[in-house]
């Protein structure tokens, strides 16, 4: 640009210079001006300096379960181990699978990871200083590929041919939750490598018993799917296995069978509501339960007693006999929750059914009694089998009306139960307490003699503290006693007064779900990051642990793994393998190692001390196959493409090159070089001299 300016300037000067003999002078003047300008602006040239040198080398070894597959008679992981041994000591070796971890020198490589996440592994090691190259030793059967390697990759393929003869159950797609006594389906995908189209038998079994058999037709690519149906009759968790035959020469027999776990639940919560007579409390409780599509309600109301004169023939009445035998003998066990609402059993020849109801509760059913003039003592329940399971003790039936308190009151909630889901209806405990204080008063209540040990008083009268709402457990079941028949006023009456009629619905929704042990309302629960693991895989366990009052626990708990069908956890054996975990604000987080033997297990959280009471547990499955082995075919093409894309090279891990043959150069930046030619003192002196010469020549020629 400077040269261009100079030429333009010189041309202009020469045009205006007049006589021909002055033109050299003016050219000289133009040059002097240009030089002066360059000295003034001081142009600088910048040059980056770099050099290359050998960088650090890191090796990443695939330890996913597909590396268990043998090439010939040698498992891929052993080929990888030999390749690692051939690397010089200066190479740092990491394994990658579920995570990236250093490989200890003194431990053999084991391929147990459920994933082979190379993308994440490369991202992690790319942060290493002075990194020159990464050697990836793998079969190429990767879960996740790097999008941009950002580092030179030399791939050592443990199975560069990628040929395999293997039949496998690739996938079993079944709902994690199935409904009891309803047909459930599992969609099974089978693949045969190296044998093409064929028909393969598929078997579904449960605890060793064949449940269903069918065949799957594979297409030309050796892939096919089929649906298997099963009906689960028992509630709880069940483990199923899908299997196909193992042909001769099958590379991975383990992947010919896969397990899956289902949680068997009722399709809907089943509630039996028995009311002694129609009241507003009955009407509004039934109405809200009927509205809830997740609840199957069977209700029976006593509409007429022998004291009533209906003035009609039976055929003119829409009344039916009280089906006591059907409800309390035939179908008793099918209910999740039984509610007696202001119902007296005496007039209906029900004495014989009360022991059945008691036993139903102790076996795990739930029972609630709602107050009124026909409930608790006035309903004749004192000293009956029902009284044995209630969370309160009752005055004798002879107390009559003395077991009723007819005064109005606003129930109060104690601070220690403010987190209980039934009464903790607001976000904060003090807001829940205020919510109950602001509700319309209840009218009258039943009196209790006392509260049983272990039961919790959730609501009580403000004066004297008479319990109004008490919850507890009896055997395996949950029980609730509510001494009022006026909770409907938390709907209609509250709505009319404040515009918010929702408390009634929220309260009873919580009551029913707590009684039915809705997992969301349990004080303690565990969860695992997956339902199914490979042998010795890492399990991530999380838990919420609160006491019976829903106050978050502190301290420590012991986590251990036992077989799912173990009736009782063996204390000593378990204690040896238990991992003590710190509980922080009622929450835990831990890593456990899955058992080596395939099967169904549960992870159990126990109190440390206090005889190790079980706080929570969760079931899971250990598979000998799993996702990694479902698709074990080696993919050397994937490794080759990765190496080429990153500027690296591709090799057979059985015959690895020496490290010196690999490009491990890294580019080192040596900084920048700056050159400013017009800053040199000689340049400045020359400019001054040139300006002086121009001045002298102009004077000499008589120019100004």
């Amino acid at each position: 640009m400077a040269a261009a300016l100079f030429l333009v300037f010189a041309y202009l000067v020469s045009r205006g210079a007049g006589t021909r003999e002055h033109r050299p002078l003016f050219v000289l003047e133009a040059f002097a001006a240009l030089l002066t300008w360059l000295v003034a602006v001081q142009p600088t040239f910048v040059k980056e300096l770099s050099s290359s040198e050998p960088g650090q080398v890191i090796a990443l070894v695939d330890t996913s379960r597909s590396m268990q597959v043998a090439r010939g008679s040698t498992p891929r992981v052993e080929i990888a181990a030999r390749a690692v041994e051939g690397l010089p000591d200066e190479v740092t070796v990491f394994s990658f699978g579920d995570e990236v971890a250093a490989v200890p020198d003194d431990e053999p490589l084991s391929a147990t990871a459920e994933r082979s996440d190379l993308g994440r592994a490369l991202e992690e090691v790319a942060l290493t200083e002075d990194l020159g190259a990464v050697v990836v030793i793998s079969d190429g059967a990767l879960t996740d590929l790097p999008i941009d390697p950002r580092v030179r990759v030399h791939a050592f393929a443990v199975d560069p041919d990628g040929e395999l003869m293997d039949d496998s159950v690739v996938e079993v797609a079944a709902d994690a939750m199935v409904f009891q006594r309803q047909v459930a389906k599992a969609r099974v995908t089978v693949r045969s490598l190296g044998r093409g189209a064929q028909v393969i038998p598929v078997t579904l079994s449960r605890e060793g018993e064949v449940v269903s058999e069918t065949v799957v037709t594979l297409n030309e690519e050796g892939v096919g799917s089929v649906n298997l149906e099963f009906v689960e009759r028992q509630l709880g968790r069940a483990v199923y296995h899908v299997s196909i035959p193992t042909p001769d020469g099958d590379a991975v027999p383990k992947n010919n069978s896969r397990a899956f776990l289902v949680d068997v639940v009722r399709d809907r919560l089943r509630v039996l509501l028995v009311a002694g007579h129609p009241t507003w409390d009955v009407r509004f409780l039934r109405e809200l339960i009927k509205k809830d599509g997740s609840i199957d309600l069977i209700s029976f109301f006593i509409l007429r007693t022998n004291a009533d004169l209906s003035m009609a023939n039976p055929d003119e009445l829409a009344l039916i006999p009280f089906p006591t035998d059907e409800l309390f003998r035939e179908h008793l066990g099918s209910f999740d929750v039984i509610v007696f609402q202001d119902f007296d059993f005496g007039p209906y020849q029900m004495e014989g059914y009360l022991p059945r109801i008691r036993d139903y509760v102790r076996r795990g059913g739930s029972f609630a009694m709602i107050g009124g003039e026909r409930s608790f003592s006035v309903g004749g329940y004192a000293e009956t089998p029902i009284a044995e399971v209630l969370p309160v003790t009752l005055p004798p039936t002879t107390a009559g009306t003395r077991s009723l308190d007819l005064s109005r009151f606003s129930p109060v909630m104690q601070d220690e139960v403010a987190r209980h889901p039934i009464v903790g209806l607001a976000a904060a405990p003090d807001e829940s307490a205020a919510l109950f204080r602001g509700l319309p008063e209840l009218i009258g209540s039943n009196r209790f003699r006392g509260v049983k040990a272990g039961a919790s008083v959730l609501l009580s009268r403000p004066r004297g503290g008479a319990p109004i709402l008490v919850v507890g457990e009896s055997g395996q079941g949950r029980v609730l006693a509510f001494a009022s028949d006026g909770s409907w006023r938390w709907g209609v009456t509250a709505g009319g007064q404040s515009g918010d009629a929702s408390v009634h619905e929220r309260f009873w929704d919580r009551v029913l779900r707590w009684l039915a042990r809705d997992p969301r309302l349990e004080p303690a629960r565990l969860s695992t990051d997956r339902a199914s693991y490979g042998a010795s895989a890492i399990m991530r366990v999380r838990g919420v642990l609160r006491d019976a009052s829903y106050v978050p626990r502190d301290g420590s708990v012991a986590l251990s793994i036992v077989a799912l069908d173990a009736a009782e956890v063996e204390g000593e054996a378990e204690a040896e393998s238990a991992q003590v975990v710190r509980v922080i604000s009622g929450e835990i987080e831990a890593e456990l190692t899955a058992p080596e033997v395939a099967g169904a297990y549960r992870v159990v959280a126990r109190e440390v001390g206090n005889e190790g009471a079980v706080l929570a547990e969760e079931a899971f499955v250990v598979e000998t196959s799993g996702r990694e082995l479902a698709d074990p075919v080696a993919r050397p093409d994937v490794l080759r493409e990765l190496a080429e894309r990153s500027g690296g090279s591709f090799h057979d891990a059985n015959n690895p090159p020496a490290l010196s043959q690999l490009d491990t150069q890294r580019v080192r930046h040596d900084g920048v070089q700056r050159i400013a030619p017009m800053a040199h003192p000689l340049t400045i002196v020359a400019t001054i001299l040139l300006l002086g010469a121009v001045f002298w020549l102009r004077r000499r020629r008589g120019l100004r």
Partner: protein
Amino acid sequence: MSLVGASAYALGEDTRVEIVGVDLGADEPRETARRRLAWEVRKRTSIETRLAPRRARLDDQTIFETPFLYLAGDEAFEPRSEAEVRGLRRFIEFGGFLLIDDASPHEDGFDLSVRRLLRRAFPTDPLAPVPPDHTVFHSFYLLRRPAGRVRGPEHLFGITRGGRLAVAYSRHDLGGALARDNLGTYRFEVTPDGERQREVAARLGVNIVMYALCLDYKDDQVHAPFIMRRRPGRVR
């Protein structure tokens, strides 16, 4: 169902079912009708009713203390205030039940006023005939059609909200069939079928109260087979 005596206890008079009269500023045309209906319900069913029911204006908060209102009249009434209309709307929205009884079904005055009130309170929910197979006709007694002091139309009218009959409107002078004087004598003749029709009216009143407390309970699967077996030729 067994017929054995129930306990006579109660958690107080305030917990009983009360048929609250709507106070429109004038005397009720059949002043003993609500008490008689409460008595019939208590005598014939297991429902505990309050035998001295109160009256309340629609803008009175006490209407939310018991969710059954009875609005009777025999002549046109002035348009209600906005607060009363709002009170009625909220009462129904929060679950209340309104029984309207036209004591002068051969005249239009009360009917027009009622329809005007309901249009203001429930502009999107028009009055419609209640079909004869509605639960209200088999909530306790098996009934074929409504009746009162007069035979009246073949059906009740009603407003359905959220799947339930929230407003029932009778143009049969139901209260006229039930009202008695201080000596216990019925105050009005029932036409055209006399005492048989009066009994049907009493049964309709019981069914309406029973429906308000049980809603579609009688439509539950457990009851359907029994009711279907009894229906042909048996209904009064």
